[in-house]
Structures are given as structure tokens and as C-alpha cells.
């Protein structure tokens, strides 16, 4: 009798170990973030306060939104480096349209549509002319940045209509709108990637484009949609940013595309395509933002912050690589 029951406990504890190990291999980055968060809360004054949490949420909101759609680009094995220019372009377009027409709604729509149009062009060039996404979006980034300066005449455009500012600066039960929008985006795009043909087709294309085509997936159309949605989202993020800054800034979001891609990669999204967990993106974005926030609270000079951010990215992907290689060796 005693022997029998001890046998069961032994088996159960073995299972728990197995579950824990499985959790570590699949969600190691989540554990790293939780540990990091607890350490910061314990040792950095003011870190774990409502005010700082809201500031943290706001600081990652732009990256969060665009990372949701970048997830699909990466899932299908492509990149989009033009999002940073689209963010600036849409903000400036929104500012100019609002100032000219006095209609806030029209300005928002024009900003988002402008982003969508650029995304559509990206998608068409990549899918139909088969030009590498890296080159296409890099070229597009420069052209769009140029257009942005032309549209605003080289200067930041202050927006006259104060109604517009509530989009980025308003709040709902004390939580700023950009944070709510980010959470909504994570929900919507999380469902899209896991529960829809659009998401699974994107993953299949990234996993093996030839096989996906032979299996009857409309590869071209899916790619065009991916880049168009990416453009729309970057456009929307640009409009929100303009609202927060109360102006359209042609210099906004420089280097933003790589911030978004690094957050995704940090969360375990494969640059080769086919692997794109939404929870990884959420954690990736949070790690980037949290470390930045902690360094600000500790008054670490900007120069060192750059080093720290790059270092963290490199360490995180190195750990992930080692883990993957060990996994490959044992399976």
C-alpha cells in the first residue's frame, strides 16, 4: 500500500518537472520577464507605482501596436523597414489635413489611409514583382520620409484643433487611450494569428513558401494583405503619436522599425518565418520598455542605455539560440 502510493507521488513529481521544463523551453522569456519585474520592483524605488506603470505602458504603446502587425510580416518570412517613415508620414498628413479642413475625423482617416496605401504598394512590389522585402521597404522608407518633409514643408506642423488631442491624451478610468488601444491590438491580432486562415496562411508561407503555394494558398494575395495591414496599423500609430505630441513631426520615429523588429525577436519570433507567438511579442515589447524605464529611474545616462539595450537583445537571442540548438540535438 505504502509502496503503491509513493510510486504515484514519484510519478507525479516527475510530471511536474516535465511540465516546468516544457514551460521553460516554450516560454523561458516569460519567466525571465517575471523575475526581472520582481527584481526591479524590489530594488528600484518608484518602479512599482501606478504612475510609473502607466508611464511604462505609454512608452511601449507605439511599439506594441506596430509589433502586432510586424508579427505577420515576420511570420511570413519578411520584414518591413518602412513603418518608421509611415508613422511620421501619417502624423504629418493628419496634421496638415486637420489644419486645412478643420475636420478631425477626416484627418484621422487620411493619415491611416495614407499608411495603408504605402503598405499596399510595398505588398504589390514584394508579391507581384518579387523584389526582396528588405530592399523594397528600405527604399520605401527613404522615399516616404522624403514625401513627409515635402508635405509639411520641412517643418513640424502644430495642430490647431484641440479635439484631436483626446485620441492620444485622453483616458478611460484612468488608463490612457494608447495603452487601451495596444491591449486591444494584442487581443485582436492574437486571435488573427492563431484562429484564422489569414494567420495560419501567413505562418505556412513563412514555414515553406513552395509547399504553401502547392497546397493552394494564395501566397501573393496573403502577402499583399499582410503589408497593407501593416501600413494601416503604422498609419494609425502615426496618427496617435501626432495626437499625443499635438503636432505632426517629420522627424518622428527614426529607428522605430528596428525597435519593433527587435521586440518581436526578443519574444521568440523567428526571422526565418513560420514561428510567431503573440505572447512572445507582448513580453518582448515589455522587456524592452521595462529595462528602459528602469534605467531612466536609476538615472543611467543615455549613452549607457544604448549599450544596455543592444546588449540585452544580443544576450536574449543568444540564450534562445543555445536553447534551440540543445532542443534540436535531443530531438
Amino acid at each position, binding site marked *: 500500500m505504502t509502496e503503491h502510493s509513493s510510486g504515484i507521488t514519484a510519478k507525479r513529481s516527475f510530471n511536474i518537472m516535465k511540465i516546468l521544463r516544457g514551460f521553460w523551453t516554450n516560454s523561458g522569456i516569460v519567466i525571465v520577464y517575471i523575475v526581472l519585474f520582481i527584481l526591479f520592483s524590489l530594488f528600484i524605488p518608484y518602479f512599482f507605482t501606478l504612475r510609473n506603470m502607466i508611464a511604462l505602458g505609454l512608452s511601449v504603446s507605439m511599439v506594441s501596436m506596430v509589433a502586432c502587425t510586424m508579427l505577420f510580416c515576420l511570420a511570413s518570412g519578411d520584414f518591413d523597414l518602412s513603418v518608421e517613415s509611415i508613422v511620421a508620414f501619417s502624423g504629418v498628413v493628419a496634421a496638415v489635413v486637420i489644419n486645412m479642413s478643420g475636420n478631425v475625423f477626416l484627418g484621422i482617416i487620411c493619415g491611416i489611409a495614407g499608411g495603408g496605401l504605402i503598405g499596399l504598394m510595398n505588398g504589390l512590389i514584394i508579391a507581384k514583382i518579387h523584389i526582396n522585402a528588405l530592399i523594397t521597404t528600405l527604399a520605401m522608407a527613404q522615399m516616404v520620409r522624403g514625401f513627409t518633409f515635402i508635405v509639411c514643408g520641412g517643418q513640424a506642423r502644430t495642430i490647431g484643433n484641440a479635439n484631436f488631442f483626446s485620441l492620444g491624451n485622453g483616458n478611460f478610468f484612468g488608463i490612457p487611450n494608447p495603452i487601451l488601444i495596444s491591449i486591444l491590438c494584442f487581443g485582436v491580432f492574437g486571435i488573427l494569428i492563431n484562429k484564422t486562415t489569414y494567420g495560419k496562411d501567413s505562418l505556412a508561407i513563412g514555414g515553406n513558401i513552395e509547399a504553401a503555394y502547392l497546397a*493552394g494558398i494564395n501566397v501573393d494575395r496573403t502577402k499583399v494583405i499582410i503589408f497593407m495591414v501593416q501600413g494601416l496599423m503604422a498609419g494609425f500609430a502615426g496618427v496617435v503619436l501626432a495626437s499625443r505630441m499635438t503636432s505632426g513631426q517629420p522627424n518622428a520615429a527614426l529607428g522605430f522599425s528596428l525597435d519593433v523588429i527587435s521586440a518581436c525577436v526578443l519574444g521568440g519570433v523567428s526571422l526565418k518565418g513560420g514561428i510567431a507567438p503573440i505572447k512572445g511579442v507582448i513580453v518582448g515589447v515589455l522587456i524592452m520598455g521595462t529595462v528602459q524605464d528602469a534605467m531612466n529611474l536609476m538615472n543611467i545616462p543615455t549613452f549607457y542605455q544604448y549599450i544596455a539595450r543592444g546588449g540585452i537583445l544580443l544576450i536574449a537571442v543568444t540564450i534562445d539560440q543555445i536553447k534551440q540548438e540543445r532542443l534540436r540535438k535531443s530531438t
Partner: protein
Amino acid sequence: MDGYLQFKGISKQFPGVQALDNISLSVNEGSIHGLVGENGAGKSTLLKILSGAYAPTKGSIFIDGKEIRFKSTKSARDSRVAVIYQELNLVPEMNVAENLLLGHLPAKHGFIQTSVLDNIAARQLALLLEDIDPHTIVKNLPIAQRQMIEIGKALLLNAKIIAFDEPTSSLSEKEKNQLFTIVRNLKKQGCVIIYVSHLLNEIFELCDSVSVFRDGKLIKTFEDIRLVNNDMIVKKMVGRSIVDIYGYKSREQGETVLEVKGLKGPGIQKPVNFSVKSGEVLGFYGLVGAGRSELMRIIYGLSEKESGSIFLNGKEVFIKNPGNALVSGIVLCPEDRMREGIIPVRDVNENINITVRKHFVKFGIFLDQVKERQNATDFIDKLKIKTPSLEQLVRNLSGGNQQKVIIARLLSIETKVIIMDEPTRGIDVGTKSEIYRLIHKLAESGKAIILVSSELPEVLGISDRVIVMRDGQKVTELDHADVTEKKVLHFALPENNKQNRIS
């Protein structure tokens, strides 16, 4: 029992699978040892342990009486062990000489010595019995010659222990004979050779002894191959004897389903006409490059036709891409499983449902995961796909099971015509026989089946009718009743070659 190379009590455990169970095996210098077994029996795992890619969970390898522990594939190479896999690891943009010596190009002060390079390469090519200019860019060579260069590369490492994993699967008859000569020469030089193949006739032709694997266990080693026959090996492999792996029965045939008229396109020299009836298995045979796969690619919408038309149940169909073909009810099981078939990083469930899932959706885009799991589970049962779960990544399955996943994908949707391009390449006898039975069953249920294959016995064994292709054109059409190997080869071989091939 004290051979030059010895495996002692090797076990390899993967999560949920015992891939190898206490394998002990000994091979002498100057002998060729064959390894046979169904897919997933453990042959490839053993080779990967020999190459240093995997570490055994238990047991050890002894070379010349000394225990050896390989930390990596490099340390195995340093111990003069070479394992030659099916996959090609060549740089397509570089030339033959550079590829042969990649990693140890002859250099002086960092500059490559072109003359030395060319000399070594030319010598090696002569050894390989290949008549290729060492300056040819590799991507311009046919697959068979690339495979030979891969083999030459491994031989340049001056290995003492050489393992071949299915080396002939993409070789033409000519290259195969060259390879056999090379392997026999290596044997004469005292090398230890391990030869893995699904083709038993190769094992009989080449090997001195043979070991049979099943489910990770070494079932039996026959020390002298002269004392064994085909049946004895097959019996050990599958645990029962397969009387007739093809299981051909003539069956009722219905209306013409697919008719191709005057079809011409890339890889097809002369317009091709043919038709398939419901319930019929139509075999396509030809040498590598005869245009069989190219013809199927045109029908499936993968390459553009130049002229001609395709009729389905009497109505002309216009197929511009695979999506169109699938809608009309034509499916293709692609020739290159790894490149065109599976999505390796996604799981079994997704790989099976990739084509059908758009018919299951709710509200336009939401997947019906209950129906998908049901569909995948049904096919896993029906086709006996060996997988620990629906969530297993397809890259972790054996080749035969990957093939079954692709077949499950095709059968998930409504089909009229099923095109199978080399459906049994690199697959063991047991699974092969299962696939043949499945083909018969599908034909009985009224599907029209087109089978493209380079394995002559297979084409003859299961087809109701055989079309032979050569040099991008259809040469002849033969009925099951009067088709013989000799006849088919007579049409398939190039004119100038016939005299010395068929006697």
C-alpha cells in the same frame, strides 16, 4: 565479433520515443555492411550517432578497439569517419572544384592556388568516373552529378569509415553503377563501409553482410549475405512476410475524367495527349529529365502551358495556379517532399489541414478547430500516421510519415484526379505497400490516379496503363497485360544506348 568499427549497447532516447534500443554491431575492415529497415526503424539515427550529430543516451562506439566519443560532427571527421547523406550540401553558385575542396581550399599566404585546386579536383573527378569540367558551376549540373560531387567531397576527407545513407535515390542508372564501382574500390582499400538502402537488390548486389532494424531494435544481423534471400530480410523487416507488395487487381473503370490534348510547355518538346478514366491508375515512366514531372507541373498550374488544353469530365478547365487545380479537383503529391510538401516548423494538425481549412471556416475567417482536429485525427487513424500528438512538428516525423501527412492533406478535400509524383521515394517497404494499397483503394472509389515514378517495378506493379516518356515527349502507351520491364526500358532509354543496355 571484434570488428574495426563496433557499436556496443547503443541506445538513443528522444522525448516519448525510444529511437534506438541497445544496438550492438560490428563491421570489419574491407567489408560492406548493409542496414535495412522501415522508416523510423532507427538506421538514420544510428548514422547520426556515428557522424557525431547526436550523442547516444547509452552505449559507446569503438574504433580499432579504442572507445571514441564524438563531441561534434567535426570530431567525427577528424577520426576519419564520413557519413554521406541524401541531402546535398553544395554551394550552387560555386564551381565543381571549389565545392569539392570547400573548407580546405589549397592556399598560399591566403591566396587560393588555382592550379593545385584544379589538379586535385580533376584527380577526384577521375576517381568518381565523372566526366565533368571542374570549372562548371554546380547549379548547372543535373541532380545525379551533384550527388556524385557530394560523395566525392566526403571521399576527399580520406575517411576510413564511410557510411552512405540512401545514396542512389536521385542517381541515374549510369551514376549508380559508377557509385558501386567506387564503393567496391573503397572496400579493396580496406575501408569500413556502412550502406543504408531501401532497395534490397542494391544490398544484395553490394554488401557482404546485412543488419535488419525494426522499431529501434536490431532484429537480426546476417553475417554472410550469400546465405540469405529477399524474403528472409523482408520478413525480419516487417515482422511478417509480404507476398506481393503491389497487390494489383484489375478493377472496374468508369468514364474518362481527365483528358489532356496537345499540351506543351516548359520541359515538353512535343505536344502530349493522354486521358485517365475514373478508377484507373495511369503510370508515367521515364528517366530523370524525360519530362514526366514537368508535364504534371503544367497540369497542376505550376508552370505555364504554351499550347493545348485540359478537359475535366468533358469540360475544358483553365488552370493558372495550384489554387485553380484544387478547385477543379486535381491534386498533386509533389516530387520533393521536403522542398514542396511539408511545412517543417508547423505541426501535424496544420500540415494536414492547410488546404481544406478554408472550407471549415466560421464567419469567413475563423478556423473551425474542432473540425480540423477531427479531420486530422481521422487521417492519422486511417493512414496509420505515427506521431505522438497532433501538435508534433512535422520535421520531427520520419520520411514515410511526412509523406502520409501530405497524402492526408490531399485526401482532405474533394478530388477527382490525384497526381502522385514519386510517392514512395525514400520510403521503406512496409509503408510503400501501405501506399500502394491506398492507391488501389482510391481508384476503387472512383478516383483517377496518375502515378509518376522512376522505380520501374512500382510503375509496372500498380498501374493499369503505362505511358513512357523520353526527351520531353510521350513515346508510347502500354496496357498492364502486355507491359514488361524490357519493353518499357526499350522505349525509355535514349536510342544510342539501347544496344548495350538490353541484351
